[in-house]
């Protein structure tokens, strides 16, 4: 009986916390599809705001997706081999490099952005191009890729696999392609989703680095909050949700599958 009550109380509390987080999101999404937010849903449901956002910000949204994919490409091409080299090599130098790569985790995005501006701000055409934001995102997301790949390395005994393939005559790149990557696939996938999600949602650093012509989705979001009517800003949020939620769900799913194996 007492257990019953305790369970009910816990359940209610959980619901309450969930509601506390979910209601604002729900309201925000609802606002994006109401004709007039101040008159409420009875004013009617519409996609006009979504369409308006798409008209105004389609370029920004597409650019954001391109940057996320570009960031993913760079972190994959650089991060996975780097993780392999760091893990198989071991030793003090490898640990030092690992620490340096992970450093951006601990540093606020604003500080990274400032450092990038100080260093490369003078290279005008680089400063004004999408590559500048891409570079920032790569610095910011690289540790997540390297870490998640190294974590899976630790669980599959990569060192033995590597030595096994080497004993059969495989040079390093063959070992990497034939044995390491296929067996580290779950970690690489998890890292990829994280990189894309982080890149799509990154605001601090991007806000510092962006120019009027180089904006990403969250920067556009801030822009619309500041200058548009509430319904438009909310419609923007809705689009953001549609992009990001499938990624988060996929991440969760892969994480669970990895655990059950």
């Amino acid at each position, binding site marked *: 009986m007492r257990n019953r009550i305790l369970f009910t109380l816990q359940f209610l509390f959980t619901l309450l916390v969930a509601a506390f987080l979910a209601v604002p999101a729900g309201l925000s999404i609802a606002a994006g599809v109401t004709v007039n937010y101040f008159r409420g849903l009875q004013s009617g449901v519409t996609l006009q705001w979504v369409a308006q956002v798409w008209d105004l910000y389609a370029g920004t949204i597409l650019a954001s997706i391109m940057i996320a994919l570009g960031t993913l490409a760079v972190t994959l091409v650089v991060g996975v081999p780097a993780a392999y080299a760091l893990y198989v090599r071991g030793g003090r130098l490898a640990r030092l490099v690992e620490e340096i790569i992970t450093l951006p985790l601990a540093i606020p995005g604003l500080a990274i952005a400032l450092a990038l501006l100080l260093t490369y701000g003078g290279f005008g055409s680089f400063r004004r191009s999408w590559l500048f934001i891409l570079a920032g995102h790569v610095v910011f997301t690289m540790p997540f890729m390297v870490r998640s790949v190294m974590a899976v390395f630790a669980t599959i*005994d990569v060192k033995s696999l590597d*030595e*096994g393939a*080497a*004993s059969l005559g495989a040079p390093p790149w063959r070992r990497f392609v*034939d044995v390491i990557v296929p*067996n580290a696939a779950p970690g690489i996938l998890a890292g990829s989703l994280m990189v894309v999600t982080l890149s799509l949602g990154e605001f601090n650093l991007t806000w510092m680095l962006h120019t009027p012509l180089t904006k990403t989705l969250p920067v556009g979001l801030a822009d619309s909050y500041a200058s548009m009517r509430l319904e438009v800003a909310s419609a923007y949020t809705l689009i953001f949700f549609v992009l990001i939620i499938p990624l988060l769900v996929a991440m969760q799913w892969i994480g669970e599958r990895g655990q059950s194996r």
Partner: protein
Amino acid sequence: MNMMTRHGAALKVENCGKTFADGTCALARATLDIAQSETLVLLGPSGCGKTTLLRIVAGLETPDSGGRVLFDGKDLTRQPIEKRNVGMVFQSYALFPNMSVADNIGYGLKLRGLPKTERAARVAELVALTNLGGLEDRRIDQLSGGQRQRVALARAVAIRPSVLLLDEPLTALDAALRERLRGELNDLLRKLGITAIYVTHDQAEAMELGDRIVVMRKGAIAQVGTPREIYFTPANRFVAEFVGAANIIEAPIESGELVLPGGRVPVSGRDAMSRAVAMVRPETIMLADAATAGLAGTVDSVRFAGDRQRIIVRDAASVPLAVDAPNTVNVSAGERVGLSIPPAAIRLLPEED
């Protein structure tokens, strides 16, 4: 079957030591010659440097400067493992989970650019040799421990290596399976006639598989010899105690006899010595009549082991003596027994540590 074919390289390990970056001296400088098609066993307790020595031969560790590894007289010290053409069976097997059994076995052949049909033929040959028929398309995680062990062996042998290196390949298996596979492995090594280095800490494995055994202790070689040499004429106390059961008796010698608390035992030769460390194997001591035997003691305990019984006798020597008696002998604790030890069964060891 042609039992006489010899395969593989003759190996020379010259002056190879290993001090790790953290200062651990895992292996003192050692020199070893391994003949073509010989099976050499590295035997010793955990942490004595067996794996380190094997990895130096494999090319997975570089020896301290001055050390050299030669395959058929060719210095390969600077070559990484992938250029040495060694077949290696790891303790963890290191099989590729992303490939089928057949692809694991064929991987080394694929790297060597062998055409598909020849590759398939060689894989089939090895599948038959290692009794893996029917499992070719299985994934590694669908195999039993014994099957994995055989895949690892087949994969290592497939490339026709210069030397086969095996690091405790049976340790991960349960006792019954280990014993069976030990026999299979022995047959296979003889059949292949390949140069092999086999690491183990199990002396029964070492005895059965080795043409010669290298007994190691704390990073140094304690003795090199055939299984019989190691067993019957151990070079020192450590080898005597590590390989098989041994009674080690420290006692004074007077006129060619060991003087023990329970009597005297004649030893052959070396009457010049005044003190000796002697080794006597339990199976060489015979029970005798307590009244007439030169040596007598009291039965402390009897452990029946089925095929024989181990009797512990106290008060005969300064330490309790282990005696292996036939399983039909009837003695019980507290009884007085006489012991007879043939002089040839007593091995005098150098007095050290």
